[in-house]
């Protein structure tokens, strides 16, 4: 895809990189100014993600606010992920997959068992069939979050489109081996993530697509930044975020 660049690039070498097998979960707190790259290592991956403000977990990713302020149904390069407080957790600064879902939610125990059969831990050890809902409960629980805190998540690498009549369809070919998405965090963010299958994935066998997670220092946001200038709404979202980073409760943070 041909698109303008801001001229600033993140470091070539990650500060940290790791690999998550399919069907697993993790969480981490990411500082503002960090860039996270998710890589679909074998094609057909799904990364479920929820975002919270670690200083006040009542501030969290809000999918409807994110979609409506950017007049979009899909997430891709140029879009920002908004909290319910009008601030930007992260911007999608690069994306080679092209379409990420945020309206289809999560797999759960019943869905996984019905579609792919029960594989208990006792029976299968690390090959057990985990599900996205329980993954978020486990990761969220580490920060005092529970089922009341789970809302609509992002499903990175999963494409679900809608016909004019509203009929939804999942595209199993959407994400190719090596596809990646770069998330530039604009404020400190608690990230809950899992690699459990998308709930509409029709695969015959439980998908176990691995992903790489790479962390880099992000270059400072420039005046010609693609995400900042993608729409007037994002200009205001960045203003809200800068106001918080400059005058909010974050010790040691420097406004962009």
């Amino acid at each position, binding site marked *: 895809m041909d698109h303008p660049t801001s001229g600033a690039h993140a470091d070539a070498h990650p500060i940290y990189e790791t690999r998550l097998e399919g069907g697993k979960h993790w969480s981490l707190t990411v500082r503002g100014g960090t860039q996270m790259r998710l890589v679909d290592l074998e094609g057909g991956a799904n990364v479920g993600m929820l975002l919270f403000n670690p200083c006040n977990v009542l501030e969290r990713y809000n999918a*409807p*606010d994110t979609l*409506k302020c950017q*007049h979009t149904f899909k997430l891709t390069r140029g879009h920002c992920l908004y909290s319910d407080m009008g601030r930007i957790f992260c911007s999608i600064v690069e994306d080679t997959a092209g379409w990420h879902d945020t*309206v289809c939610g999560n797999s759960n125990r019943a869905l996984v068992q019905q579609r792919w059969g029960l594989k208990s831990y006792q029976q299968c050890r690390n090959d057990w069939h985990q599900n996205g809902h329980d993954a978020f409960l486990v990761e969220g629980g580490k920060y005092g979050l529970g089922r009341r805190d789970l809302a609509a998540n992002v499903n990175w690498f999963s494409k679900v489109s809608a016909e004019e009549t509203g009929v939804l369809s999942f595209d199993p070919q959407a994400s190719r081996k090596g596809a990646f998405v770069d998330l530039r965090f604009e404020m400190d963010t608690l990230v809950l993530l899992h690699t459990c299958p998308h709930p*509409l994935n029709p695969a015959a066998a439980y998908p176990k697509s691995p992903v790489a997670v790479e962390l880099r220092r992000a270059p400072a946001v420039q005046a010609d930044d693609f995400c900042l200038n993608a729409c007037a709404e994002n200009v*205001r979202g960045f203003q809200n975020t800068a106001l918080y980073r400059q005058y909010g409760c974050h010790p040691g943070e420097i406004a962009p």
Partner: protein
Amino acid sequence: MIKQSGLSPDTARYRQVIPAGEYWFDVVGQGQRFRIVDVEGNQAADTLLFCAADPAERYSFVDTLRAQRNLYLSVGSTLLSTAGRALALIVADTVGRHDTLGGACAAESNTVRYALEKRTMHSCRDSWLLAVAEHERFGLTKRDLTHNINFFMNVPVTADGSLTFADGLSGPGQYVELAAAMDVLVLISNCPQLNNPCNAYNPTPLEILIWDSDVS
């Protein structure tokens, strides 16, 4: 899908007008029919549903849309909870489709969508926050105020993935009617939004009617 209700307002056990910018928050019993009327037309009813016995189980738009494989709500839609159980069914609808993607307006999202100086304008989330503060017995807080249904609102999505807030399909006297599948706690904000066409820039009243299950 458009389907008229067979119930007459004369047999309703309860009727209440909700002025724009105010809320309605109460329990609807299992089997009761619950109608929301767009009294003057083009008004958005930002609605949350909770399992009355366990409000941590609540309406989930993602589970609802995924189960019906369709973005829009109308007759035949089952409104599912976060635990995958039916909270209510849409049994009558004179509009044809309703939104559940667009969320509710809030002071903070208004700053992003319109201007930072809109932060003091009234919003659905402010009405919900006041509602939960004034009804501590229900045990809800901001944690529980998540993604809602926008009855009477029209948010079309295109095949290439864009989304718009379009002029409403509703009109004066149009309604949607739900049958409660369990005892449900219903929280409605009659949307005060003045910045977009969800209310035709003119917020107007809604009316709530409830029928007992033995009335036909």
